[in-house]
């Protein structure tokens, strides 16, 4: 039974239970950090690290956390991991750290992490919670990478800072500005719902 359960736990957040386009969680950072592929990769790694380890830690202590103050305890555990991410980024990638600005700290209030803690880690064993956290982080990461890919390519004609489209390309500056972020995410959700989720329900 264990193997099937592990597989199911891992697959669900990538598809039909995806935190971003099905549950519509963690939208703030989805929009904010996707204007450059490089920033997005760093941010998603930070989120994956935090979701996986905070789910793991909360699951270890799940029987000790008093129900009344569990949100507070969860927030503190999450914040601890976010501080680790913040310090590591500041030390090794100061440029990206500066560009991400407050969004690193805002991983704390990313609803995906709290959502996984509440919905999964409080009722499941540490090992399984770790996998669930990691998979949710992955489900979040690949959506952001797809959005960032299109936004950077159409907005500046570059990918990872390298010029891809030639001089014939007129940059769609709107893509790297706030309205472009909203439109891009909306289109992504639309396409996914029309194409994939409809097929599944048939």
């Amino acid at each position, binding site marked *: 039974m264990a193997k099937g359960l592990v597989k199911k736990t891992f697959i669900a957040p990538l598809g039909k239970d995806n935190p971003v386009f099905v549950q519509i969680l963690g*939208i703030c950072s989805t929009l904010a950090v996707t204007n450059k592929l490089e920033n997005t990769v760093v941010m998603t790694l930070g989120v994956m690290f935090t979701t996986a380890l905070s789910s793991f830690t909360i699951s270890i202590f799940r029987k000790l956390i008093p129900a009344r103050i569990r949100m507070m305890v969860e927030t503190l555990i999450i914040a601890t991991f976010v501080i680790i991410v913040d310090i590591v980024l500041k030390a090794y990638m100061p440029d990206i750290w500066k560009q991400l600005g407050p969004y690193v700290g*805002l991983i704390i209030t990313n609803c995906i992490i709290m959502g996984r803690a509440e919905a999964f880690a409080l009722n499941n064993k540490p090992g399984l919670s770790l996998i669930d956290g990691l998979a949710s982080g992955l489900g979040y990461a690949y959506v952001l990478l797809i959005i960032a890919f299109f936004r950077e390519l159409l907005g500046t004609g570059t990918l990872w800072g390298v010029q891809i489209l030639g001089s014939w390309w007129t940059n769609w500056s709107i893509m790297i500005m706030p*309205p*472009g972020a*909203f*439109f891009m995410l909306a289109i992504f*959700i639309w396409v996914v719902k029309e194409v994939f989720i409809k097929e599944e329900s048939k």
Partner: protein
Amino acid sequence: MNEALYPIAVFFAAIFTNNILLTNYLGMCSFLSVSREIKTSVGLGIAVTFVMATTTILNWMVYNYILMPFGLEYLRFIVFIIVIAAFVQIVEMIIERVSETLYAALGIFLPLITVNCAILGVSLFMVIREYSLITSFFFGLGSGLGWFLAILAMAGIRQKLARAKVPPGLEGAGITLIIAGMMALAFMGFSGMINIA
């Protein structure tokens, strides 16, 4: 720019040119889920504005008088979130005791606010931009009002939208994001009105 006018400029910039929701994407979760009706979004808007303005001051004091002198800046995430959660809890208890009607109107929104990333975001922006106490207050107040304005406008549009025919794939979050994008475009019209570093 005139020193005395700087906080005022920050205040208006936070509402229009640098709207916390439409340019910094903060507070999206509750923006998407609570913007269905004007009445509820007014309640949430008032609560957010109040909590944002007050917690910005509290966090400024904690950061500058406690964390900075002891070199504990890296603890700011934990400390800010505790201050916000504690403050929201206290306000909830006070409102419950003082006014039944106010509690009925705002009570349900207060727990939502602790996890509203706009509140924490404003405190973090304040630290990064090194605002003074007065400027921070106006920044918090302006950001709250800006968020209020955005969610109110969205709720108004969505109430009309209930009668419109939306492609099935776009229903709910999709169409809301597209409208938010158009609102962001409209707000870009304000850019250049106020220039703050």
